[in-house]
């Protein structure tokens, strides 16, 4: 389900140890959308939101906007 709304970036989909949540396996479908949304909003480096995810979670359209928006520490620090 979450894979409709988020895409794994910068790693091969697989296990990542995440503080608070423990080990999450991004090659599987059993991660909740809410967890992915919280990670995305907290600058988790390995998730990008899809246009469908942006529509579903934030109620915005993807028109005239990049399909993938990344939020990473690197990009934040320039």
């Amino acid at each position, binding site marked *: 389900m979450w894979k409709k709304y988020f895409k794994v970036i*910068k790693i091969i989909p697989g296990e990542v140890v995440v*503080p608070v949540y423990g080990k999450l396996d991004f090659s599987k479908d059993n991660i909740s959308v809410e967890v992915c949304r919280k990670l995305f909003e907290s600058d988790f*480096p390995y998730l990008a939101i899809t246009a469908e995810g942006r529509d579903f979670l934030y109620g915005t359209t993807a028109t005239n906007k990049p399909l993938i928006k990344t939020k990473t520490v690197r990009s934040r620090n320039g």
Partner: protein
Amino acid sequence: MEFTNIDKNLPNGENMGGIVQKIYFGFWVDVETFPTKPVTPATLEDNASLTGNIVMKTGKRMFEMYITDDTGEFNVEPVGEVDGKSFVLHLNFFHPGMQKKILGFINAAKNDNLVFVVTDAEGQQYLMGDAMRPAVYQGAPNGSGTGKETAARKGMSCEFTYKTGNVHVYTGTVPLTEATSV
């Protein structure tokens, strides 16, 4: 940075000792970027916090190792003379058995540069290694080998150290899958 009161602060009354039974490790040379240390911290907490994530080079990843319960310890040792104080962080653990994997790890690690992420019993993480300095192997303080008696615990103990000016908490992620370029 301003000083503030430092009260007893044990959320939910928890203050369990030791580290958890998984440690995470990788080659220092495989790290693309390290989290950054505080530059102009506003608070005491900020002064002990790393910012960002450890990011591996393309095709590289971190790995996990099982350690025997109650054998792992993360220790902070202040060192240096007046006006020259710093810290040596120590990681000690015991891995049971003498299988080829653990022997091969020690063979590879003993003269190389590594990085570790250590998690305490409350889930607080510590990163051993930064852009300037790695963690390095020191030896087997609790012995390694078969033991003498049949009731002895066969296995490998290890100690790694990392020298740092300050002690920080790591709040980032540990990638256990290979990094890609996109």
